[in-house]
């Protein structure tokens, strides 16, 4: 792949189907996009104590997030320095030492090799060279990101304007406390990972793809957040630098988020209890912020979900759905969140999954090369210079801008390395 390939494949108004179907492009993305960007790997609240760990992937690479004895968070390549075995096999746990199951090499939670059984052949000075690979890691208010980029920009610079939206999402929780619950739901679809990205700031599809969700609302006289006329709603979508995107639905729902919810199971007693305690105004916390934020390339805030996008193959993607709790709020809020969250996962998400798979099948047609992304052009020039574009939610500016960022990453590969 040469430096200009992606100028052809990603044009201002259209992109080529190969982005979604070419296995070679996919494998290049795993390094140039995923390994070279800051990716979300977990939340600090998941590993409160020294030795706590959790595993995930970053661009197909098995990754291990640990809490060290000094309290610091480490993000390591979950790959033994001996012959390459994945060292930690569980999704999460607590370990003073990580012992490789193959030949027993033993590492600290910081990734340092401390024991090799039958060590006669290994001079002591080898130990320092044979640690687990490290990623550069940084957290922002509990959210841990990591990268293999050899010279990454600081996390906060990379977040840029997206920081404001992230702060808003965190700060609506009492005490600024927010924590993913237990373990995620894992949903897979037979489609390319970018389909979920194309969809994350797509304000128009709700009217069509989520028609049945809106019908359920109409049956009980509830105007769901997705039922607003996309052509006239004051909701805004924003394309930010570095491929980040925002859809701000708040201006379109003047009665607040709670008014957009149907009666989820066991709603009434919990709602009455909050009202009786004088906490009725907290009910909006039971729904999402209505500020959808996507941090390219793998973290999407929607509802009270952290949606982590895990590419598996060019035509296969796994979504990790983490429900977040509000530990500083009255218990009723999290009890409601559980049921509120299921509502869209059951009656909305299946639409999205089906659209992703339909698109992937359609993109298998070689004779039709292009995907049109021209809605809302031209982007205003001043905006484009600043790197951000905002507009009505019917505009495809967020898709165009994240793909332009993607093309830059693909055209100009950054060096990646393990520390």
């Amino acid at each position, binding site marked *: 792949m040469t430096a200009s390939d992606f100028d052809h494949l990603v044009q201002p108004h259209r992109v080529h189907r190969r982005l979604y179907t070419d296995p070679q492009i996919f494998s290049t993305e795993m390094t140039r996009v995923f390994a070279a960007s800051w990716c979300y790997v977990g939340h600090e609240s998941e590993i409160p104590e020294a030795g706590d760990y959790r595993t995930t992937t970053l661009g197909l690479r098995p990754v291990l997030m640990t809490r060290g004895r000094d309290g610091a968070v480490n993000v390591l390549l979950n790959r033994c320095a001996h012959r390459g075995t994945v060292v930690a096999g569980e999704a999460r746990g607590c370990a003073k030492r990580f012992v490789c199951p193959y030949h027993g090499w033993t590492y600290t939670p910081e990734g340092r090799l401390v024991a090799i059984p039958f060590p006669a052949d290994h001079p002591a000075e080898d130990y320092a060279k044979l640690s687990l690979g490290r990623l550069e890691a940084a957290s922002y208010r509990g959210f841990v990101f990591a990268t293999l980029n050899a010279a990454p920009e600081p996390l906060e610079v990379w977040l840029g304007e997206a920081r404001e939206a992230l702060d808003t999402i965190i700060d609506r929780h009492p005490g600024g406390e927010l924590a993913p*619950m*237990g*373990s*995620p*739901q*894992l*949903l*897979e*679809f*037979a489609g390319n990972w970018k389909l979920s990205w194309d969809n994350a700031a797509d304000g128009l599809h709700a009217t069509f*793809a989520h*028609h*049945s969700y809106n*019908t*359920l609302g109409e*049956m009980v006289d509830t105007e769901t957040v997705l039922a607003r006329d996309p052509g006239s709603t004051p909701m805004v979508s924003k394309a930010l630098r570095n491929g980040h995107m925002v859809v701000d639905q708040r201006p379109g729902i003047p009665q607040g988020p709670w008014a957009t919810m*149907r*009666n*989820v*199971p*066991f709603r*009434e*007693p*919990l709602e*009455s*209890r909050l009202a*009786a305690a004088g906490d009725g105004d907290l009910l909006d916390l039971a729904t999402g912020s209505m500020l959808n934020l996507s941090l390219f390339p793998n973290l999407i805030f929607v509802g009270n979900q952290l949606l982590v996008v895990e590419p598996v193959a060019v035509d296969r993607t*796994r979504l990790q*759905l*983490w*429900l977040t709790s509000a530990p500083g709020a009255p218990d*009723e809020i*999290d*009890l409601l969140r*559980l*049921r509120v*969250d*299921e509502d869209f*996962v*059951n*009656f909305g*998400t*299946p*639409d999205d*999954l*089906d*659209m992703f*798979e339909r698109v992937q*099948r359609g993109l298998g047609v070689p004779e039709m090369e292009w995907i049109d992304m021209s809605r809302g052009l031209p982007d205003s020039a001043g905006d484009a210079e600043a790197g951000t574009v905002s507009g009505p939610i019917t505009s495809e500016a967020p898709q165009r801008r994240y793909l332009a960022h993607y093309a830059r990453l693909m055209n100009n590969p950054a060096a990646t390395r393990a520390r």
Partner: protein
Amino acid sequence: MTKALESAVDSASAAVLARYDELAALLATMGDRPRCDPDLSAVATAALLHEARLLDAGRFEEWLGGWTDDAVLWVPLSAPAHPGRDQSLLLDDRRRLAERVEWRRDPAAWGQQPPSLTARVVGGVEAWPAPGGGLVARSSLLIEEHRHGRRQQLAGYQVHELVGDDLRRRTKILVVAALGTGVRNPSFLL
């Protein structure tokens, strides 16, 4: 708010938690049960096979009619789990079960249009008398699903609490391993 009203509110929300605890306990203690009651197991088998037949045939309205008013269908992501502390795929009361049936009939509910073709294999049915009358049954479940030319097979088990002479479903817990490891569009699960 008067004192009487306040305590009514408190007891209503306590009832929610009590139902959640009851569900969690039912699931958690399933493995500790003694050998089943063979006669009751035969009775339960007939009810469970009938349910599987209705679901595979898409006779959702009839299926909906077989639930009690205080029904709960719970699909946790793994077991053990608690409906008030852990994310679930779904926890439906009677109202949402009815919505689900409406949704299955909506031609624009793309997640199930066209609908999944399913074949459920229910086996290993064990039943015990339930404390409040009725019975509790555990059974193994294998579902083969076909949709859009693809198939997936999900394995798990289900726990039913069936009450009254007509063995209405008061509780059903469906444990499907793949929900915690990676499943394709699970919206056919009931």
